[in-house]
């Protein structure tokens, strides 16, 4: 089992320059500590216009800063929006290659298409075609990274022959993923040989079904890149405390705040009727969970908060379902004070991570 951090970079009102800077600095401090503690990944989203929920609109800059203050933790775009109005594919290829070089080959490239009208409408993107443009982008990116010269004539973008520079540090190219929120996207991931970057907080049963289908389909995939990246990552909240009750209370507060902010987004389906957005993505589960920012309702099962023993049980369950990596959200709207986030990371690394660092055989022998 691998462990990562997952950043939306949530910033509460009022948005003073100092507050924005403080939150970004807090995140960097957490990443630096996570690197020292042995966490495997740091992921950052690309979101635009999502007030308080996510101020992470330039993740490549944040991830570059992460790479510069760390030595070994891998940095991941979670995800790059593969819609022409958001990002030109040439720029994606160039920026990711540059980040891979600067990080010394530590880059993972997550891909996706945006789920909110707030964002798609803001860029005047057509929701009907985002799946198709994503498909074109992910097939082009590996070629743009690997081929000396590249030209392309597609439905959503085109270019004459040029040499796209620089080339990534990793050979043949960085691992590629796709964000999985809507039902069925795990199949898209499997069929293309992409890692499944789960961004939903669904319960065990639903995740197990998705993972089984992903593992089954990826065996016969036609990879878009030079290799198959068969990995399943899921997202979770982390708050680890010596006292279970304290850990659960703060973890719930974190989860409720995140969920409540997330449910304020305008999902595309809510306002723009489109066959491309049949599902509300992660929102139904969040709405069930989010009765209010300070609610004390039962949240989705398997959350990684409480004392180390409780968290170990949750992680073991995810591991048994076939999850390879859990990425943790550490804060939302700064409801967890920075010193407590840091203490939580330290305790998790001391008490929980060693359990999952051992070989399966060694664990069984205990």
């Amino acid at each position, binding site marked *: 089992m691998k462990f990562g951090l997952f950043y939306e970079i949530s910033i509460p009102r009022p948005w003073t320059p100092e507050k924005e800077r403080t939150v970004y600095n807090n995140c960097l401090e957490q990443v630096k500590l996570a690197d020292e503690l042995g966490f495997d990944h740091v992921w950052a989203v690309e979101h635009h216009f999502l007030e308080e929920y996510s101020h992470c609109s330039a993740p490549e800059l944040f991830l570059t800063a992460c790479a510069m203050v760390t030595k070994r933790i891998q940095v991941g775009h979670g995800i790059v929006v593969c819609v022409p109005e958001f990002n030109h594919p040439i720029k994606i290829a160039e920026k990711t290659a540059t980040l891979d070089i600067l990080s010394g080959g530590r880059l993972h490239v997550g891909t996706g298409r945006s789920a909110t009208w707030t964002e798609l*409408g*803001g860029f005047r993107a057509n929701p009907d075609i985002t799946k198709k443009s994503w498909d074109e982008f992910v097939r082009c990116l590996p070629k743009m990274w690997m081929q000396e010269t590249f030209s392309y004539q597609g439905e959503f973008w085109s270019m004459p022959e040029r040499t796209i520079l620089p080339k990534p540090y990793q050979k043949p190219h960085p691992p590629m993923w796709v964000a999985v929120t809507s039902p069925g996207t795990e199949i898209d991931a499997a069929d293309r040989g992409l890692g499944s970057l789960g961004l939903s907080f669904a319960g065990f049963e639903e995740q197990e079904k998705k993972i089984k289908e992903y593992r089954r389909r990826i065996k016969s995939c036609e990879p878009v890149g030079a290799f198959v990246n068969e990995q399943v990552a899921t997202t979770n909240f982390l708050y680890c405390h010596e006292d279970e009750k304290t850990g659960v209370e703060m973890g719930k507060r974190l989860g409720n705040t995140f969920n409540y*902010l997330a449910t*304020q987004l305008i999902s595309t*389906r809510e*306002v723009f009727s489109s066959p491309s957005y049949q599902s509300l993505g992660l929102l139904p589960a969040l709405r069930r969970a989010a009765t209010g920012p300070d609610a004390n309702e039962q949240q989705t099962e398997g959350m990684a908060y409480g004392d180390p023993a409780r968290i170990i049980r949750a992680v073991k369950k995810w591991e048994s379902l076939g999850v390879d990596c859990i990425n943790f959200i550490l804060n939302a*709207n700064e409801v967890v004070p920075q010193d407590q986030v840091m203490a939580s990371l330290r305790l998790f690394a001391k008490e929980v991570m060693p359990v999952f660092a051992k070989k399966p055989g060694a664990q069984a022998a205990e």
Partner: protein
Amino acid sequence: MPLYGTLDITEAPARLPTLAHLDTEAWTLPKAEMMQLLIEVPRSSTDGLLPKAMHPALPSYVILAITRYSDSPVGPFNLAMLRLGSRAGAHPRGFLLGAVASTDAAAKELRTRWGLPVEGGEVKFLRRHDRVMGTVKKNGRTILDCALVNPQPVAGTDVQYINWVTAANAPLDGTTQPMLIQVDPKYTFYKAERGTPLVSAFDAAAWNAASIELAEPIVGTCCTVDTDLPRIRFVMDPLKPVFQGTRRIRESRADE
């Protein structure tokens, strides 16, 4: 935390519809034709229109809806509504700003049974192959002239209608008081089309939304549905956040 509305509906309760009781019987409304146009509006133009209990949608948008109800307990009627996109706690809702019904009987029943702010007027719903058109007149003056241009077939499963919230006076705990009422029709789709919204006349003041300016069209739909106006299940304190002030007054329907 998310922004809240600023409207205190308790300051002018006389302006609100009044219900005699909250035991409204449901209406079944078969084969209704519903045109909905969603249009973004500047956030500043919605100031003061949303109750304190609710969160604004970001970006701000309104729903212009014109429906032809071919059959109802008060006979056929057309209904036009203006709803403001918003959130009740975690859930998307359309807060009713104004409405016009084509018959006085429908206007009266909708006001007194569900608390919808409906007035009588002239509401036309016209279907052409290249567009679906709606016009609304009040006191002989056009207050809305709109169309769904170039309708193209989509699946009913592509369309999501969000529930309504209306402000009204109703008796609860022995006192008639201002409250928010959730109205949550269900829909069975027979036909669905999608097209481009076009509004050529809109008198915001006539919809109790004087400051609203229509800005960016999002999308329009026109659907034929079996629908209803159900029994009232949830009422909300207009001054408390919805997640604290919601009260269930009736269990959900068996099919929910």
